[in-house]
């Protein structure tokens, strides 16, 4: 090749210059749109300034090149010679500017990355905050449900223990370290005889009858931390004592210091009564056995004495002194035999019938027999019989004897007063399935000290010759033989008013025969 034509270079340069201007402005347009869309984005800002500088450089260079070609085409070499350094200088200046802007990218990108990091961390923090808020909301919701559930449980538990506290038949109380009673249930106030409505402010000192027992209670409670089944006597409102069984647990505060006690108290009156009745029953049983033995031993010699006395009476006239003496022997021997027969009845050694018996009929028979003599002493007889009373199984004659004994005793108790009221009551106690017959008088009553002995054989308060002291013993034996009980109440407590009235009431309680059982037996 001998030469290289520069015409392609001229053409390329001219077209290229135009293209460069167009392309640089198109790039600048999109850079402008980018910063318009996201003005806060530093990276787009950098690209915009880069494109702007590049467009300036492109105009400078392309214009210079085009001008050069135009001037040289038109033969104005001199003009180009003057313009050339200016155009070259401008090109250099804009190229350096473009390079500077490019270098500045470093800072731009750092800023952008910093912002990005910050934005990312903020977004993460926001996301975490949202998650935490959701969790918190969930927990809050769950917490509300839990609180509601626990409150219901607590309420049910509180109700349960409140019912136990209120409905307990035993005394329950809470006291503080100074023995002051903080709370006591109604049963406790009732047990001590205090009014349930507006009860007084009590201290343990008020309810312990004996100071020694209170001291002992304190010592044991503080040393052991609890007390189990301590038998003490409490003082009732009226000053009388009541035997109780006390169990208590000491309570302590957060510093483990004694702060009081929780206690449950059981009334022992009923148990003690039962114990006394049991002891009496045991005693009566042993006395009955002894009486049966004695009766058997005496019965034979009495029979012999009576037999020989009656034989001898045939040998003497009744008017003669020996005849009269023999008559006395015969009479007294018969009296002895009656006593022996009574003893045997008491000890249940004698035969008895078993049939369905109406207590109402027996009571009416007894009233019919005794009413005349009662009226003679101005004693009024009252009847309070429950109709349709279930029958009891027993011996009519022996049961009649029991009620006759009781009516006679009542008669004797009211005899000296010159007047009185005898009340015969019959009723059915469905809770124990017993027929209860009551013989109640308004006599002088039975003193407390002899009440435990009234059923003892040969115990009597009547003058000599008026009673053998076997009436109640025999009655006791007969009722026991019928599977029943005798309870005595003196003075008598009015069921409605609760007031106590002078007199005595004997309650005979016999097991009732249900209609079905009676029909089967028939």
């Amino acid at each position, binding site marked *: *090749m001998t030469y290289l034509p520069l015409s392609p270079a001229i053409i390329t340069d001219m*077209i290229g210059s135009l293209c460069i201007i167009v392309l640089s402005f198109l790039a600048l347009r999109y850079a402008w749109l980018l910063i318009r869309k996201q003005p806060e984005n530093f990276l787009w800002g950098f690209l915009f300034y880069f494109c702007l500088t590049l467009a300036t450089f492109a105009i400078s260079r392309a214009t210079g090149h085009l001008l050069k070609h135009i001037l040289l085409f038109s033969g104005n070499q001199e003009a180009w010679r003057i313009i050339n350094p200016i155009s070259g200088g401008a090109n250099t200046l804009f190229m350096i500017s473009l390079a500077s802007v490019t270098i500045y990218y470093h800072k731009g990108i750092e800023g952008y990355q910093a912002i990005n990091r910050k934005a990312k961390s903020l977004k993460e923090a926001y996301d975490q905050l949202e998650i935490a808020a959701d969790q918190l909301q969930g927990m809050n919701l769950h917490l509300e449900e839990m609180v509601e559930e626990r409150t219901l449980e607590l309420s049910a538990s509180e109700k349960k223990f409140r019912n136990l506290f209120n409905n307990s038949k035993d005394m329950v109380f809470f006291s503080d370290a100074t023995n002051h009673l903080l709370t006591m249930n109604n049963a406790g106030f009732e047990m001590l005889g205090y009014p349930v409505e507006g009860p007084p402010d009590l201290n343990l000192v008020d309810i312990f009858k004996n100071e020694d027992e209170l001291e002992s209670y304190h010592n044991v409670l503080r040393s052991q931390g609890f007390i189990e089944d301590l038998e003490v006597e409490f003082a009732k409102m009226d000053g009388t004592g009541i035997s109780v069984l006390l169990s208590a647990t000491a309570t302590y505060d957060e510093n483990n210091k004694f702060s009081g006690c929780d206690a449950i108290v059981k009334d022992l009156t009923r148990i003690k009564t039962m114990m006394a009745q049991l002891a009496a029953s045991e005693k009566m049983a042993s006395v009955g056995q002894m009486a049966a033995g004695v009766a058997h031993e005496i019965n034979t010699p009495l029979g012999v004495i009576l037999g020989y006395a009656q034989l001898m009476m045939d040998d003497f006239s009744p008017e003669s002194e020996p005849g009269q003496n023999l008559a006395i022997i015969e009479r007294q021997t018969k009296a002895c035999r009656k006593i022996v027969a009574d003893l045997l009845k008491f000890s249940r050694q004698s035969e008895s019938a078993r049939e369905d018996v109406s207590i109402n009929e027996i009571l009416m028979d007894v009233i019919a027999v005794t009413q005349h003599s009662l009226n003679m002493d101005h004693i009024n007889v009252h009847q309070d019989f429950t109709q349709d009373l279930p029958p009891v199984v027993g011996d009519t004659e022996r049961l009649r004897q029991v009620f006759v004994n009781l009516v006679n005793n009542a008669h004797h108790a009211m005899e000296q007063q010159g007047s009185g009221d005898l009340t015969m009551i019959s009723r059915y106690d469905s809770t124990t399935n017993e027929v209860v017959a009551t013989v109640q008088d308004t006599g002088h009553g039975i003193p407390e000290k002899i009440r435990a002995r009234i059923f003892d054989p040969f115990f009597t308060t009547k003058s000599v010759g008026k009673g053998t002291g076997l009436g109640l013993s025999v009655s006791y034996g007969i009722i026991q033989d019928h599977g029943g009980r005798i309870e005595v109440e003196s003075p008598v407590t009015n069921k409605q008013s609760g007031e106590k009235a002078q007199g005595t009431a004997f309650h005979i309680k016999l097991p009732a025969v249900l209609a079905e059982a009676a029909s089967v037996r028939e």
Partner: protein
Amino acid sequence: MNITRKFNIFALLLPLALLLAPNQAWALQVHAPPEGIYIHQLAHLFFAAALSYLFWDVRRSAFPGKGWRYLQIFCVLMILWNILAFSGHWLGFHIDNADIIRSDGYFSSHIIGPISAIKFIYFCATLDHLLSVPALLFLFLCMRSLYRSIDKEEKK
């Protein structure tokens, strides 16, 4: 006379002395003719270095999307353009004015033979738009791609 006063007088006299006797001070430098081309060449190098840094940093940052790949291509092409332009300017010193004949007008200008490597490279350097135009095309594509991706994201 205290030290502050002495300093104030010195500060007033120094600019005056520089104005009155400039030849004695080395503050003024005469810029001889080749300086312009040197500065231009240094500017090419500076621009190429700046583009290299931009290319490296964009690549290192691994921004996602086509736009950033187009920007890298733009950087590479513009670096090559800078090298070509730098070479063209440099080789221009080694070509005599007599080697370019314009006897039949400007458009019929040509480099006379024998064609050496220098002359051929110089000729190629005059075709530098074959690099710069595609470079600018990729810059345009880059900006358009970035804009469209942002627009698309926003429309979501």
